[in-house]
């Protein structure tokens, strides 16, 4: 994953229990959900254009940590395994961690709803808290209430209508992790029972505490005012 240690304060997703309660750190943005990230992996050009323009116009694109996990898992299905790293290294992109309290807050209600999608729940929570739209290539799970009770105030931005000039050139690799049904794009997330949780804390080495590298934030009093 690209080193983003030079990112200025305010572009790093806050971690800790208040990660959803500090929206003022980010000026404005959109949430990219797991389907949008997979569209990037598939090489869809509208996502390329989106990330390019977001970087140029200072718009933050937040990806829920779970969507990165899902994308990393699915990236084995694609020929270009480096595409996810490229996306995560773009200046507009920020990964929003899933901390302990948020994980519990999203997970408990999910247990009571059949087919609940906890990864999209995180995207939904980010969108509702910050009042940002969700960019998704698959709005249906939200519309069906699988990410939480549908909120009419949450804008879902679907992909553009298919353009034959804009079809992805990246071929899908056959083999492990392939869905048994080629039309089934979302067979589900890995069984949580198989995940090992050490201490309940999310450690993301790629997202520092917002302080720039040494020497980039001050001039040591060299009298240049």
């Amino acid at each position, binding site marked *: 994953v690209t080193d983003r240690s030079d990112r*200025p304060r305010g572009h790093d997703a806050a971690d800790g229990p208040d990660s959803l309660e500090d929206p003022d750190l980010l000026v404005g943005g959109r949430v990219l959900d797991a389907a949008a990230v997979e569209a990037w992996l598939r090489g869809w050009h509208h996502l390329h254009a989106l990330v390019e323009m977001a970087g*140029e116009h200072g718009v933050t694109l937040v990806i829920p940590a779970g969507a990165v996990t899902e994308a990393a898992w699915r990236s084995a299905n694609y020929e270009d395994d480096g595409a996810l790293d490229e996306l995560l290294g773009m200046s507009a992109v920020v990964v929003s961690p899933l901390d302990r309290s948020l994980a519990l807050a999203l997970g408990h209600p999910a247990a009571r709803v059949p087919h609940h999608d906890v990864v999209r729940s995180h995207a939904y929570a980010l969108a509702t808290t910050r009042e940002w739209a969700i960019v998704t290539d698959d709005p249906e799970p939200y519309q069906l209430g699988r990410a939480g009770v549908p909120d009419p105030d949450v804008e879902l931005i679907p992909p553009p209508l298919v*353009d034959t000039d804009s079809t992805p050139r990246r071929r899908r690799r056959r083999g492990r992790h392939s869905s048994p049904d080629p039309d089934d794009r979302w067979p589900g997330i890995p069984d949580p029972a198989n995940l090992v949780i050490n201490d309940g804390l999310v450690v993301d080495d790629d997202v520092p505490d917002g302080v720039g590298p040494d020497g980039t934030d001050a001039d040591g009093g060299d009298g240049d005012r």
Partner: protein
Amino acid sequence: MTRAYDRRMRTTERVTVTVPRELVQHARLAVESGRAESVSAYVTEAMERAARRDRDATVLADIYARSGPPTARDYAWAASTLGVQLAEGEADELARRAVLLAATRHADGGAPA
């Protein structure tokens, strides 16, 4: 305190540059109003932004060379999604620029190591 200062001194370099007087005035105003710690910090932030843009452009050029550039329609969708107002013909211009970006990478022989 001393160690932090030493560390900074090891990782920074004093350079002399010539910039328009108006921009220097902007930087000084930013310092006076508290928006920047110093003129150096102001310039550093601007250079960091430019460096990030350059890195983005390099990665995107590689992607466009590999899988084809976005079309004007893609840019129009992206602008609408981000709430960015495009001037007439700007989406076409962005698409042309992406084609050139991809061609540059092809000419360079692809992605750098």
